[in-house]
């Protein structure tokens, strides 16, 4: 059962047996006139019979065959004429389209291979551009480092000044405290002294002195009230 498919796996004469490079395909096919007769036939007869030679030959041959009934006109002739009409119509109408389609198939094959090559080239060029950019970036590295250095220096300076400010504020707070303590002490001393002086003065006021001062005040008040009455 299995040996029946073995022979199909080996293809016969799939390639030529030599590996020499192939000649390129010709650009145009062989020139034919009326789709059947190659141009070489007309060129072959041209020296002896001129331009009309092959046509005379063809017409004479056809008439000979028909008149001698070597070719008999029967129903196959009519059928053949119809088929010929359809074939020629088909070739004339769709021939160029089919040829363009075949060319397109080949073009797509070549184009896909070219696309692979172009994509590879493009990706390599992009890689080169990227590499150049990286090299340019390397040149600018020193600026980058300077900027970073300046940045760090500024940060350090700012930090230092902040700490300096903190120190100043702390010291000021402590000094203010001392100053406040001294003021408070002075205030307390003054108050105490005033109180003591007042207490002593009040203690030293004798009752005689008190009466004399009250009488003087009353006299002063009367005098004042009189002057107030006069002015009003």
């Amino acid at each position, binding site marked *: 059962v299995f040996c029946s498919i073995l022979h199909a796996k080996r293809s016969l004469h*799939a390639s030529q047996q030599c590996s020499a490079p*192939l000649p390129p*395909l010709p650009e145009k096919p062989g020139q034919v006139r009326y789709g059947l007769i190659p141009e070489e036939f007309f060129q072959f007869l041209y020296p002896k019979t001129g331009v009309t030679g092959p046509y005379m030959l063809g017409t004479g041959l056809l008439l000979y065959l028909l008149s001698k009934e070597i070719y008999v006109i*029967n129903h*196959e002739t*009519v*059928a053949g004429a*119809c088929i010929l009409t359809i074939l020629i119509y088909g070739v004339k109408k769709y021939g160029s389209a089919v040829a363009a389609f075949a060319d397109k*198939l080949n073009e797509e094959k070549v184009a896909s291979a070219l696309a692979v090559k172009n994509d590879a080239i493009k990706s390599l060029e992009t890689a080169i551009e990227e590499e150049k950019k990286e090299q340019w970036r390397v040149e600018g590295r020193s600026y980058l480092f300077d900027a970073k250095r300046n940045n760090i220096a500024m940060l350090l300076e700012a930090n230092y000044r902040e700490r300096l400010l903190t120190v100043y504020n702390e010291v000021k707070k402590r000094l203010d405290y001392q100053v406040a303590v001294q003021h408070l002490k002075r205030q307390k001393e003054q108050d105490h002294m005033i109180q003591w002086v007042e207490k002593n003065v009040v203690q030293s006021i004798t009752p005689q002195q008190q009466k004399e001062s009250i009488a003087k005040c009353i006299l002063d008040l009367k005098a004042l009230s009189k002057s107030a009455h006069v002015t009003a």
Partner: protein
Amino acid sequence: MNLTFFDQFSSPQLLGIPLILISMLFPTLLLPSPNNRWITNRLSTLQLWLMQLLTKQLMTPMNKTGHKWALILSSLMTFLLLINLLGLLPYTFTPTTQLSMNMSLAFPLWLATILIGLRNQPSISLGHILPEGTPTPLIPALIMIETISLLIRPLALGVRLTANLTAGHLLIQLISTATMALLSILPAVSILTTSILILLTILEFAVAMIQAYVFVLLISLYLQENI
């Protein structure tokens, strides 16, 4: 020479030497063999594209084991296509009009599918005889009908191809005979029959291609059931 209507269906002979083998192998001469160029000429490109299209169309619905049949089915398709199309030319012999050749193509291929099915998966291939969801009283009748349908398949395949092509060729001959006979009597009716003949020839082109495709498609379907 004066042809009867039987002459285009008789096996060709030259001085008593049967030419049937040459007439069957001749279409292969028309196909360019693949050469080892990468970009080939237009004919080779088109042939390659057509073969790829046909093979893909046939082989896509099939599972992996069915792909062993790709070579025989696509070569059968090309064979039948070319023979049918070449038979439309005048004074040609079409081998596929002979029932003997079509039966000898259809019967072994159908039998091969049946035997493969019965050997590898007998219950599945026998199960195709009864469609799903049939009501129970119908089952005996349906099994008999489906068995007859199964056994008649090779006959149908061969006769379909033979009948289509023979009928087409015969019609062409008859109508062209009518055209010729009417040409001297009533030329106007002759023109009418000529137009009928042209339409018929277009139909015959289509039928030639379709019949080849249908033959191979049906065999691939029978294969899909059984593989």
